């Protein structure tokens, strides 16, 4: 796609084509403004698609097999280890990385920091997709996934933490869909819908904060049901929910840094100048936020060890592993951030962010799998099919992520952002004048040596 962009093929970034008269059809929009032949050609040219194809060819039949032959065909989940990779990695690992939605929503909408806007939509989408695919992982893991709505309609177990998780994740998913729908309405050309959503944005955002606080914490609180099974270093009756909630903050922010880095590299044609020019600055800003989260997390981790007087466990093998986890996910990134933020070394910040993401997932997998049942002699090793399914679902996640980023105005701004009355004035950008945005959509200019700038072309007004 980057090649087409360089060659100057016109891509969809507004309701109307550059000539200002013809509307992009849905088909054009889906094919990114390319002809079907061009679209296929770029699909085939991308080696990453071939990797995905191989993964799907192997993985999809195995996922089908899981539903036909039962869980025992794909997992080693036993009576002692009921939760395997699907939940340990899929659910517990993906949810904290998806806290970005509520955090940037809060920053922009509640605290009024509009300078974060270029990355807000990416953060919201990251949140939505993370949650959605966490639920997908859950569907694969549940014994009877078709009964998933039961806690909503058939039978209620209100004293259970999982009841709270179910309700909150379901509600939060709808909140996030509403938040992300803004971009969808722009893309599809339905300004009414967009305006409707904008009107309740503050409510949605505050709802997002509440729901996120509670269910990020609740996922941690799930493990307080197993005080004798989770290793004491990863367990704390009083702090468990705080650990999960607080570590989700740097986790989510760093996931946005990682995703934006990848998108900037692999989808350069889709990123507009507003995104590209602000990205480095925003990356550092996000890292600052993440550092504060990490520092808080480190503190409460230490407090919980002191609170239950668990120092002696640090001297054991489990303790060494605990220290490794803290080093990778917390202490090392803190040092890296402290160094690189001050010196404005964005590349190093991004490396630190990768560490935080790895560390957060490692922490969840440690709690849910590696140190679970630490008193039992034998550890569960996941079945190869379980690993394949995880990789497959994660690949679907990447594919969907890419599909949306390529199309919806997430990394770029919709050219006619607020066409209240598109029929009257075709002259384009000027009608956004009554509602000026901090970085007006008309700021497209072919500056910088970026391939992206060629795509956007000159504003319609010219």
């Amino acid at each position, binding site marked *: 796609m980057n090649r087409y962009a360089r060659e100057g093929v016109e891509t969809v970034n507004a309701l109307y084509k550059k000539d200002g008269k013809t509307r992009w059809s849905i088909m054009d929009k889906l094919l990114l403004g390319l002809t079907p032949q061009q679209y296929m050609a770029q699909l085939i040219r991308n080696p990453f698609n071939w990797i995905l194809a191989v993964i799907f060819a192997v993985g999809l039949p195995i996922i089908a097999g899981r539903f036909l032959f039962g869980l025992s065909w794909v997992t080693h989940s036993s*009576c002692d280890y009921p939760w395997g990779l699907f939940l340990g990695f899929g659910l517990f690992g993906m949810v904290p990385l998806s806290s970005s939605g509520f955090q940037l929503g809060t920053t922009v909408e509640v605290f009024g920091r509009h300078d974060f806007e270029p990355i807000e939509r990416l953060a919201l989408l990251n949140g939505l997709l993370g949650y959605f695919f966490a639920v997908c992982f859950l569907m694969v893991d549940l014994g009877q996934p078709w009964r998933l709505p039961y806690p909503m309609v058939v*039978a209620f177990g*209100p004293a*259970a933490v999982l009841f709270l998780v179910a309700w909150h994740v379901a509600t939060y998913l709808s909140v996030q869909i509403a938040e992300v729908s803004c971009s969808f309405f722009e893309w599809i050309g339905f300004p009414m819908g967009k305006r409707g959503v904008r009107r309740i944005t503050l409510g949605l955002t505050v709802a997002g904060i509440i729901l996120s*606080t509670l269910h990020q914490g609740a996922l941690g609180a799930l493990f307080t049901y197993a005080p004798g099974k989770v290793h004491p270093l990863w367990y704390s009756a009083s702090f468990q929910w705080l650990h999960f909630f607080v570590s989700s903050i740097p986790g989510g922010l760093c996931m946005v840094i990682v995703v934006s880095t990848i998108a900037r590299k692999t989808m350069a044609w889709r990123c507009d100048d507003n995104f590209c020019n602000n990205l480095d600055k925003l990356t550092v800003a996000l890292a600052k936020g993440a550092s504060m989260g990490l520092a808080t997390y480190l503190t409460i981790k230490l407090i919980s060890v002191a609170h239950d007087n668990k120092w002696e466990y640090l001297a054991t093998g489990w303790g060494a592993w605990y220290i490794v986890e803290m080093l990778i996910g917390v202490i090392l990134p803190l040092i890296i951030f402290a160094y690189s933020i001050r010196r404005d070394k964005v590349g190093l910040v991004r490396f630190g962010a990768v560490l935080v993401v790895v560390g957060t997932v490692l922490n969840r997998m440690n709690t849910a799998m590696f140190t679970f049942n630490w008193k039992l002699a034998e550890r569960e090793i996941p079945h190869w099919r379980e690993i394949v399914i995880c990789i497959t679902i994660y690949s679907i996640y990447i594919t969907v992520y890419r599909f949306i980023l390529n199309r919806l105005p997430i990394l770029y701004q919709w050219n006619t952002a607020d066409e209240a009355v598109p029929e009257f004035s075709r002259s384009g950008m000027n009608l956004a004048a009554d509602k000026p945005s901090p970085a007006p959509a008309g700021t497209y200019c072919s500056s910088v040596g970026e391939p992206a700038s060629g795509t956007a072309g000159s504003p319609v007004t010219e």
Partner: protein
Amino acid sequence: MKRRDFLKGCMICGTAATLGVSKKSWGAGSFEGYPEGMGVLVDLTKCVGCRSCEAACNKEQKLPEPDRPFTDPSVFEEKRRPTERALTVVNRYDTKNENGSAGGPVYRKIQCNHCNEPACLTSCFVNAYTKTKEGAVVYNPKICVGCRNCMIACPFNVPGYSYSSAFNPVVKKCIFCYDTRLKFGKPPACVEICPQEVLTFGHRKDLLKIANERIKETPDRYVDHVFGEKEVGGTSWLYLSGKPFEQVGFDTTIGNDPIISNVKEFLGTVPMVLAIWPALFTGFHLLSTRNKDHGDHGHDHEKKEEGKQ
């Protein structure tokens, strides 16, 4: 902000708070078990490991044929746990005397202990478990979603899951023969068949008296402790042992608090968050966007009806 909107906001927050409280506080309060609850006293000093209880359970609960027959003593080579194919198992433990010499084998029957405040019940988000007034903890396979949180929560590692079933996997655990026997006042199949009178069926409170009398009469024979009297809030099945409990496979570190009491600290924060957050963050919003051009979104401050749940 207009005064009317302020009042509206207050009401919304108030409703959220009450909803939160009334929903979650069910988890609170402690429960000592039903007064007429039944139980079984297991006297490990009498058990000879004949495994006839396993066979009786298999027949009563219509479980699949075991891999090795119930007369095969080779199963004692390993430590087994209840699974979806065997709701009760007998294990052999080689014990030691205080002076370090071999104390001979002790056999222990394992099954669901039917807690007074079951962890499985409190962790279940569809309420598939019920503690009946007879003392049994029974399970409703019709509504179980299969999250297996109960297996995570059970401090005794009892529930098993039929992973091999693709379309109707369910949790399998001892249900005290509730449907076929306990409901009608009859003892469970394992108790009835035991040739050594290891198992005594009766009201839990009477069994506690019997257990303490036995300890009192023959203090040399027993460890002075009834396992299950207080553990995790008390269980309907009680154990007497001649050897220290940790030597015969009991987890003596589980404590006397019901599992749910670990979770209460979190559950307590839920209404707080529901009540405080909306006001706090809309407050932040008003403060931080005051006198600022907040134009381009055109969302006005009174639209916060979503803040309630």
